C-alpha cells in the first residue's frame, strides 16, 4: 500500500513537472522542472528495484547533463517574442494534430493490453540479487555490440562538435610553445654599454 502511494506520488509529480517544462515561460524554469522530472523518474526506478539505474539517472542526468543544459540556456540569448510569433497562425492545424494524437495515445494506453490485469505486478527481486551485478553480466556479453556502437556514436558526436566549432583564425595571435621553450636569453636581452 505504501509502495502504491509512493508510485502515485512520483508518477504524479513527474507528469506535473513535465507539464511545467513545456508550459513555463522562462527557459531556466523549464530546465529546473526537467531536473525535477528526472528525480521523480529515478524514484520510479527505485520502486522497480533498479536502484543502479535510478542513481545513474540522478548522477548523470541531473548532475552533469542538466548542468550543461543550464549553461547553454544562460549563454544563449533566446528571443521569446520571436518564438511566439506565428503561434496563432499554426494553432488550428497544430492543435488539431495534437488533439488527434492525444486521443489515439489515450485510446492505445487504456486498451486492454496495458490494463493492470494485462500487465501483472512483476513483484520484487530476491534479496541476494544485485542489479549492478546483473547489468554487468550482460552489458559486455549479450549487449556487447550495442554497447560498442553506442561508444562510436559518442565518438562521432565528439568529432562532430569539434569540427563544427573549431575555428583557426588567421588574425588571432597564437602561442608557439616550441619557440617559447627554445628561446635563447640572448634574443631577449641586450646588454648595452653606457
Amino acid at each position, binding site marked *: 500500500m505504501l509502495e502504491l502511494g509512493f508510485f502515485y506520488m512520483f508518477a504524479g509529480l513527474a507528469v506535473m513537472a513535465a507539464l511545467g517544462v513545456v508550459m513555463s515561460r522562462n527557459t531556466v524554469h523549464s530546465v529546473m522542472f526537467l531536473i525535477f522530472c528526472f528525480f521523480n523518474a529515478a524514484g520510479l526506478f527505485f520502486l522497480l528495484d533498479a536502484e543502479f539505474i535510478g542513481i545513474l539517472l540522478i548522477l548523470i542526468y541531473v548532475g552533469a547533463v542538466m548542468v550543461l543544459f543550464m549553461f547553454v540556456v544562460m549563454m544563449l540569448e533566446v528571443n521569446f517574442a520571436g518564438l511566439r510569433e506565428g503561434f496563432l497562425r499554426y494553432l488550428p492545424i497544430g492543435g488539431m494534430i495534437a488533439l488527434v494524437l492525444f486521443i*489515439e*495515445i489515450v*485510446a*492505445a*494506453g487504456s*486498451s*486492454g*493490453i*496495458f*490494463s493492470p490485469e*494485462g500487465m501483472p505486478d512483476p513483484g520484487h527481486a530476491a534479496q541476494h540479487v544485485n542489479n549492478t*551485478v546483473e547489468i*554487468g*553480466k550482460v552489458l*559486455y*556479453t*549479450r*549487449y*556487447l*555490440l*550495442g554497447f560498442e*556502437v*553506442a561508444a*562510436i*556514436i559518442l*565518438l*562521432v*558526436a565528439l*568529432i*562532430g562538435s*569539434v*569540427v*563544427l566549432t*573549431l575555428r*583557426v583564425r588567421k588574425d588571432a595571435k597564437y602561442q608557439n610553445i616550441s619557440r617559447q621553450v627554445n628561446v635563447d636569453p640572448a634574443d631577449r636581452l641586450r646588454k648595452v654599454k653606457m
Partner: protein
Amino acid sequence: MTQVTFPLPDVIPLIPEMFVAVMAMAILLWDLFLPKERKQWSAYAAMATCAVAAALTLKLASPDSVNAFYGFFILDPFASYAKLLIYAGTFFGIVLSLDYMKDEPNTGEYYSLMLFGTLGMMLMTSAPNFVTLYLGLELMALCTYVLVGYQRDVLRSSEAALKYFILGSLASGFLLYGISFIYGVTGTFDFAKAGIGIAHAGADAHMALMLGMVFLLAGMCFKVSIAPFHMWTPDAYEGAPTPITAFMSIGPKVAGLVIFIRVLADVLPALQVDYTTILTWLAVLTMAVGNLAAIAQRNIKRMLAYSTIGHIGFAMLGLIAANADGYAGVLVYLTVYLFMNMGAFAIIILMRREGIQGELLDDFAGLSRVRPGYALAMGLFLFSLAGIPFLGGFWAKYVVFIAVVEAGHLYLALTALLFSAVGAFYYLRVIKYIYFDEERVAFDFAESRLMQATVAVTAIAVVALGLFPGPMIDICKAAISNII
C-alpha cells in the same frame, strides 16, 4: 566475487564493420600527421577502405542467414547486397569530394565521418532487432547532420544542418515511441519474435499496435523522405556541400529502405492490410509532391532533392507489393538510382567554376556546344531518371510497376505511370537548356581524371544496365530470397 564468463561472440560476420570502424579512426589520427599538400591521402585511404570492405563483404557473403552477437546482427544475402550499394555510394561520394573539399579545413574528419556514417548504414542493413536498428540509424544520422553543416561559414549550410538535426531528432523520437508500443505488446526487440507476438496478439492489443506501427512507419518514412515527412530534404540537399548531397541521396536511402523491408516483412506481416492502406496513400502523396514540386525549381540540387522524393515514391510501390518481386524491385531501383544519380551529381560538381556554384539551371545553358561529352552523359542520366526505355531507369520503374500490378494494385500503378510522365517534363527541361540554349556563363572546367572517370563509369553503367538488365534483376531476386 561474482564470476562472469565471457564467451567471445562470433565476430567473423562483423569483419567488414570492424574494418570500417578501425579505418575511420585510423584516418582521423593519420590525417593529423599529413603535411598540407598531402591531405588528399586521407581521401585515398577512405576510398581504399570502401574497396577492401566490399571485398570482405563479398568474401563473407553466403546464401544462408548467419546470426551473430546473440541475435544483434544478421548477415544474409540481402544485407550483403545492400552493403555493396552503400560502399559504392560512399566511394563515389569521396571521389566527388576530392576537388570540392580541397580548400576546406579539417578534411581528415570529413572523410572519417563519411566512413562512420557508412558504418551506421552497414549496421542498419544487418539489423535483426530494434536495438541495432536504432543505434545504426543514430550513427548514420549524426554523421550526416555534421557533414551537411560542414561548410559552416556558408549560411545555408549551417541552416540546412540545423533544420535537418531538429527534424531528425523529432523523427527519432517518433521511431522510439513506436518501438516502445510494439515492445510493450510483444515484450521483445527481436524482429522475428515481435512479428510472431503481433500475429498472436489479442484484439485488446489492436489499438496499441496500430499506434506503434504508425509511429514506427512515420519515423522510418522521415529517414527516407517520404511525404509528408520530406520537408527537410530540399533544404538539406541544397545547403549541404554537393558531394555530401550525392552521398546522402544513396547510402541513407539504401539503408532506410532495407530496414523498411525488414520491418514490413518480419515485424508487421500480421498488419499488412493496415499498413498497405497507409503506404498506398503516402506513396501517392510522395510521388505527387516529388514530381510536381520539382517543376518549380530553378536550382538543380533542389530539383534533384524533389526528384529523390519522387523516386522514393516509385520505389515504395515495391514495398506495397510486399512480395519477393516487389522487394527485389526496390533493390533494382536502388542499384540503378545509385549510378544515374551519382553521375548527375558528378556533372553538377564539374559545373562549379570560378565565382558561381553551377547549381542553377541557367548555368547549364549551352553545355553541349562546349563539352559535348559531358552534355551527352548528363543527357543519359536525365533520360534514365525520367525512365526513358532502354536505359537503366526504365527497368527500375518497370520492375516495381509490374510487381505492384501483380499484387493487385492496378490503380496505384496507373497513378505512378501518370506521375512518371509528369516527372519526365522537368528532366527534359534540363536537356533543353543543355542542347538548345545559348551559352550564358563561360565554361571553364577543372580537369580531373577521377571525375571524368566517374562520369564515364556511371554513364556506361546506366546504359549497360538498360541494355542488359537481366543479371542485375536475377542478383537482386537472389538477394531477397531469405526475406520472403
